């Protein structure tokens, strides 16, 4: 089954835009609507579109499944690790106020890191789900 030429061209044009939008949603989530959950889902949607148009094998060459399970764990570790870092600084678990020079800077840094962890885990988990379902029907 050879996919349509128009489909391939439009996908090649749209996928970078989707990834760019996901990064915007991820790092602009403090100021506008957005955050880690949305960014992760949008990011994984770009790769799912790639897999649907160019085939599962091509998509797995870009992100091998082994990496995905590591990334999913990495996100949770980043989140929990940010909480642990504030313990030796004298704060409570997940209290970001001591991470920066003052309370505002610390909170801002903490929120950014935590949202990054959420984004990585959500994106990796969604891709794991899609690859498991799609890979099941391959043979």
């Amino acid at each position, binding site marked *: 089954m050879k996919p349509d030429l128009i489909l391939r061209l439009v996908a090649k044009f749209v996928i970078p835009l989707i990834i760019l939008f996901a990064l915007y*949603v991820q790092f602009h*989530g*403090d*100021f*506008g*609507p*957005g*955050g880690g*959950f*949305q960014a992760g*889902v*949008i990011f*994984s*949607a770009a790769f*799912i579109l790639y897999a*649907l148009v160019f085939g599962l094998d091509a998509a797995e060459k870009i992100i091998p*499944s082994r990496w995905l*399970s590591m990334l*999913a*764990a990495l*996100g*949770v570790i980043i*989140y*929990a690790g940010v*909480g642990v870092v504030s313990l030796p600084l004298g704060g409570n678990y*997940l209290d*970001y106020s001591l991470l920066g020079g003052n*309370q*505002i*800077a610390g*909170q*801002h840094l*903490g*929120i950014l890191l*935590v*949202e990054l*962890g*959420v984004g990585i*885990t*959500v994106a*990796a*988990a*969604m891709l*794991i*789900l*899609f690859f*498991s*379902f*799609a*890979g*099941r*029907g*391959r*043979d």
Partner: protein
Amino acid sequence: MIDIVIDVTLLAFLVTTSVAIVRMTNLFAIVMLYGIFSLLSAGLFVVMDAPDVAFTEAAVGAGISTVLMLATLALVKRPQKPYFDEAPRAHLPWLPLVVVAITGSALVYGTWDIPAFGDPDAPAQIHVARYYIENAMPETGVPNIVTAVLASYRGFDTLGEVTVIFTAAVAVLLLIGGRRSNQRIEGQRDET
């Protein structure tokens, strides 16, 4: 006024879509209608001033979960035509209908005491919500209150949610990750 008109229109569309989902038997059409259902509810979230939620629902409900359901349909389809139809119902629909009617009327009775839609003096609006709205910006420096509450005030909660997502991904990998190994197992049985 325009808010109410959009609200009523979207709610009417939602009810129509849900009734169509119940009445149809072609699973492919049902999955597509569910995508429409999610998109309509995302529109409703925008009308109710929740852009963050609408964002997520549009990406997740209309995007990812539709793709996952279509992938499942491809895996569970019948070998002959019709590929995607559900089997005709064997039992009578009256008992579930009675159960649903009783539950629904109990819930509607429960709304009698709920403050009216959009009431600024409702109990939900004057306790912790007011604290967040007044203090989120000075305490965290993040203008988006939803992000501030999600990551900072309720950080433990979100850590739990992220762990749930991680666990679900692990469970799906354990259930259907990797190649099917039925043939190999049957072959081994034959040898022994």
